[in-house]
């Protein structure tokens, strides 16, 4: 475990010191400031849209950060040549994969929770509320989703270069977000080959809609049933484990190029 956390800490320091993460904060702050200044017909205390747009921003920015961070980790080590001294230490390739995932996941979760806090702050300024129990549930589920995305990015990066891995990750996760929840409705009218393809997509791609509790937060519903939340978290853990297993399978016999070293 020490090796995992040490590797994770290297990821955190890189993200924080390279200041890329701050760009996203600035974007979200700009967005939220715009929302604060928006006055719809002088109606005060209208906060639903602030919550909705702020949380959408948190999801989109967290998604981008998770993909971009995770796909670069392993290729970067190889390109820099730092993978060699790293694996010359008592660090296995599995630990390297897990450590990079852990670092990517935790830093992205941290950034995302900051986005949540910013949205919460603006909502409170406008006189709105966020139910704490629902926030905790939503944050846990969102973290699970980010874990899956980060694991997918790591897995893809063991097979292809970072740009291709990022593109593929965006397509897969985008389709999962947009298409998978609609498949049961689409299947009412889609038969034959298209129906079969939709079923394959439905069963193969991750179901990110299970991790999305924004509607409860925005519309002030109470917390969801604990059993359902636990089930969703378990599903997320399982998906993450599958992707990390695929990552390890792709990485354990990988022959490293010498990257930029001659």
């Amino acid at each position, binding site marked *: 475990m*020490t*090796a995992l956390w*040490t590797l994770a*800490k*290297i990821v955190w*320091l*890189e993200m924080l*010191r*390279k200041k890329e993460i701050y760009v996203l904060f600035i974007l979200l702050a700009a967005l939220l400031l715009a929302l604060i200044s928006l006055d719809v017909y002088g109606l005060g205390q209208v906060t639903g849209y602030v919550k909705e747009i702020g949380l959408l921003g948190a999801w989109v920015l967290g998604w981008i950060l998770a993909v971009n961070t995770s796909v670069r980790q392993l290729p970067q080590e190889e390109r*820099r*040549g*730092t993978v*060699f*001294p790293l*694996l*010359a*230490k*008592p*660090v*296995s390739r599995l630990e390297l994969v897990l450590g990079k995932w852990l670092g990517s996941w935790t830093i992205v979760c941290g950034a995302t929770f900051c986005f949540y806090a910013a949205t919460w702050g603006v909502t409170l300024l406008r006189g709105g509320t966020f139910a704490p129990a629902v926030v905790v549930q939503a944050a846990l589920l969102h973290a699970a989703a980010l874990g899956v995305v980060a694991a997918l990015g790591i897995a893809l990066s063991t097979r292809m270069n970072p740009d291709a891995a990022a593109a593929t990750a965006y397509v897969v996760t985008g389709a999962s977000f947009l298409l998978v929840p609609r498949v049961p409705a689409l299947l009412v009218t889609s038969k034959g080959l298209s129906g079969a393809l939709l079923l394959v997509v439905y069963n193969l791609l991750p179901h990110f809609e299970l991790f999305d509790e924004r509607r409860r937060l925005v519309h002030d519903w109470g917390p969801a049933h604990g059993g359902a939340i636990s089930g969703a978290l378990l599903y997320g853990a399982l998906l993450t484990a599958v992707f990390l297993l695929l990552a390890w399978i792709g990485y354990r*016999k990988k*022959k*490293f190029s*010498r990257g*930029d*070293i*001659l």
Partner: protein
Amino acid sequence: MVIHDAVKPAIDIQGLSVTFPSRGGAVRALRDVSFSVEPGTVFGFLGPNGAGKTTAIHVLLGFLQPTAGTATLLGQPVSEKIARERLGYLAENPDTYLFLTGRELLTMTGRLFRLRGAELAKRVDRLLEEVGLSAAADRRIASYSRGMRQRICMAQSLVNDPDLLILDEPTGGLDPLGRLEIRRLIADRRAAGKTVFFSSHELSEVELVCDQVAILVRGRLAAQGKTSELVGSNESLERYFINLATAETDRKEDG
């Protein structure tokens, strides 16, 4: 205290072959290479560019699977973690995490060896002083000169006080003072009973520090033995090496 198995060599390579598939036909990077490194010695691993030195080192460190043959480190198969606990490695043209400070790099490395607390902090301070980077310890490595980066990477390879130190071109790109520094470090390690295995093009350096050398040409072990014995009637190790490499090349062309 140095742990030696009095019988087992620090490095033992037997019948090692590595073949890479390629579009133009298979590339045989190593051909049936066998040699041993006795513990407590400084062993030079020489060869022209492309001879297969780094390939052999990568096999030793478990980065590559050999096509044939075996390799052990400190009596353990190369894949065993326990072997790497006692191993230090400096890569050729080393690079590292430029966003870390020198102190952070050594501390992170120490944690990978499960060192912690005051012991780790003390060891880091000592290493920084040994490589002459105490003043720059809390600056980002990105601000270091090439020589400083080489030294911090050298320090990184020494964090766990390894019994076996593998150095791939440790003096590459260094000025004379830098090379002197490396020679001193190697000498200190030998004095402490450690084993040093390093590859180099700087034959004058090798002649000064190495007890034994092995010379690789075109993936084949062309010569091995004590430095003094190999030099023999040649003026220098460099002259011996040139003669050997030329002879091997001629043999290949004729054959």
